[in-house]
């Protein structure tokens, strides 16, 4: 029946790429602005935007400051790395960010800890990277930060302003191939356990071992800058569309010989139907029905034919089923058609019952329709001719 071919809305697989592209175009504009604005930012004659004066001292290895809590703040700038940074190459000078410094002695630095130091300084990013900064204000990280968690990521945790190399193509605004590889490593600074799981996943392994540019990185699913809480019901309910962005894209999937019918077959199934109706009505309602990652894994997604974890093995699938169906027995996984479209070889019973109704429905309804139509026309004729019925 048509429920096996029910098509969902067409999704633009590239929408994420477009969004990221727009963000990065914005970033590029933001980055290039200071080139013309250096004079405006320059605080005084002492530096005049000339980094060499700062570096005369700050290039010295081991230049440190003892902080009140006993931590040691490294004040050395690695000239080699700094000269490769996008800031250096775009002509952003030290005092464009460190605006309170106009000479020596420097004003008293209030930070009592290393984290304090970062939290005091990172708001400087706002001046040039306004769009990205404002986006972060709507992020999960910002919520944590304002909720009193000082460890929540701020700009400089992901982008060290002294070493950050260019991430996007300055013309197209697209993420550079090498930048893609850096994304999981960046998130790993705080989310290392997830990174380890991701690295061994089908996606992560393809990225790190094969440099595969198609596979998702962290930001493909979680977004960038305005990263949202992925533990909400809404995120969960909408997540099949997230996976479908790539997994219904024939251009990408044909390279791996993966079916693009995974979403349709999921939606046609009881679980997918429920999630779809939740998604379309009120996505923030809790549901006990699984989404893609409940069976395939969240960050540790494995190939279905993985020799150890693969869901193609009924035993592995049964374990997944039993998560929510604790009383499920050996035959139970067979009730899920494993994204197959029924055919004479796969799920033939389903295929033939479907076929039976494909013939039965038009036959019965057609027969009824013809009979009713004949009756109706006859009555019309009788009424027009004025012949009393029977």
């Amino acid at each position: 029946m048509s429920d096996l071919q029910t098509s969902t809305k067409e999704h633009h697989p590239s929408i994420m790429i477009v969004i990221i592209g727009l963000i990065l175009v914005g970033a590029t504009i933001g980055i290039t602005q200071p080139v013309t604005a250096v004079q405006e930012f320059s605080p005084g004659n002492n530096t005049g935007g000339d980094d060499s004066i700062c570096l005369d001292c700050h290039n010295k290895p081991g230049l440190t400051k003892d902080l009140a809590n006993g931590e040691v703040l490294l004040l050395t700038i690695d000239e080699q790395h700094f000269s490769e940074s996008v800031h250096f190459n775009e002509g952003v000078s030290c005092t464009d960010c460190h605006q309170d410094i106009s000479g020596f002695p420097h004003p008293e630095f209030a930070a009592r800890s290393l984290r304090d130091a970062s939290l005091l300084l990172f708001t400087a990013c706002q001046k040039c990277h306004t769009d990205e900064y404002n986006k972060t204000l709507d992020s999960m990280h910002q919520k944590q930060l304002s909720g009193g968690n000082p460890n929540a990521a701020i700009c400089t945790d992901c982008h060290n302003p002294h070493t950050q190399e260019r991430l996007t193509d300055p013309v197209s605004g697209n993420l550079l191939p090498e930048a893609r590889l850096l994304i999981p490593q960046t998130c790993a600074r705080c989310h290392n356990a997830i990174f380890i799981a991701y690295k061994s996943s089908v996606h992560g392994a393809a990225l790190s071992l094969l440099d595969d540019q198609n596979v998702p990185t962290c930001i493909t699913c979680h977004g960038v800058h305005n990263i949202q809480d992925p533990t909400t019901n809404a995120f969960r309910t909408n997540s099949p569309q997230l996976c479908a962005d790539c997994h219904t894209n024939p251009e990408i999937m044909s390279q791996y010989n993966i079916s693009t019918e995974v979403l349709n077959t999921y939606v046609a199934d009881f679980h997918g139907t429920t999630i779809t109706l939740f998604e379309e009505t009120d996505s923030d309602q809790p549901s006990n029905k699984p989404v893609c990652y409940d069976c395939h894994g969240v960050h540790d997604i494995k190939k279905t034919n993985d020799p150890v974890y693969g869901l193609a093995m009924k035993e592995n699938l049964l374990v997944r089923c039993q998560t929510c169906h604790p009383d499920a027995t050996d035959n139970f996984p067979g009730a899920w058609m494993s994204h197959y479209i029924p055919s004479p070889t796969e799920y033939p019973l389903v295929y033939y019952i479907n076929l039976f109704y494909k013939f039965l429905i038009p036959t019965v309804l057609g027969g009824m329709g013809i009979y009713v139509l004949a009756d109706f026309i006859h009555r019309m004729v009788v009424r027009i001719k004025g012949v009393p019925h029977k």
Partner: protein
Amino acid sequence: MSSQTQTYQRFPIARRIEHIIMAVSFGMLGLTGLPQKFPTLGISIFITNIFGNVEILRLVHHISATIMMLGIVWHLLVANYKIFVTKEPMTMLPVIKDAIDGIQVFLFNLGIGKKFPQMGRFNFEEKLEYWAFVWGAAVMGLTGFMMWNPLMILKILPGEVIPAAKVAHGGEAILAVAAIIIWHMYSVHIRKFNKSMFTGKLDERDMLHEHPLELADLKAGLAGPRVTNPIELRKRKTIYFPIASIFAVIMLGAIYGFVNGENTALTTRPPASNPIPVYFPQTPTPMPTKVPLVSEGPLNWESYAGPLFQEKCTSCHGSLALGGLSLETYANAMLGGNHGPVIVPSNSGESNLVVIQSKVHMGQLTPEELDNIIKWIDDGAPEK
């Protein structure tokens, strides 16, 4: 004239209530079932929204199914009472004449046939509808049970029967709803609104049109319950009621089992068994330990003061010679700057370098370094 207003009872009140229960539960089943079959259609989303969400929709579907099952049990009890106790004629059973009637009506409507058949209490249209309902109820009940209790079913049958049941349930649903719209709506609402299912009565004119043979039987006193002597009737009742009670209890138990047979799934998703910690920072790279600028050695220009000044001072006091002072070489250092010497051998107190470095100055010496420089000057500021 009086025969025109004469009415005949067609459906007693119990049958009319039964019809309403069936109509409502059927309607609700269709309304709450089809959105589940076509979850991406706008109308499905609209209907789901009316109910609140898909779980409520499903609950209403299950309640409606239960009501319909109870209605079917009641219908069976009544039907069997009429068959075995009052021994009324089984007017709903299909007979050859029904097929002939159907063909004749069709041909008559096409203008080919000349004869419009005369029909009895239930004409072929009504029988077709009744038996279609019986078939539909059986398919829907069976497949519905399988989907409602998959664990129970899959202890015996292969997993494939569940999606097969779902396909059959959906296909049969389309057939049933569409048949009701085409067949039932046309014959009793559109062609002519036949109110007898609600009023219970049909007047003589309509009886003559639609059920002439029954009318003839009624007039002849042949229709309705056969007259039985009260003793015989009581005897049948004493047999029927115990059997019917047992049947009713079994059926109610079966419906209870249908509805509460198993807990297919947990209502709340269990938390991950081995959750990956979200915040799990990498061990930070250890802070590079500060390399002593000058190795242990004698306090003289060559091995201490010279390298130290080179490191900390010559950015300004080197080739730039700010203030006329260059600390590049021993000779230049001893020369001093625009304001005179900065190093006075053996007198650190008079040495401007020490005075200035004791305050805040760029390239600030650490207290330890300053102590060493004082000691060096007081030792006579030796070059070697």
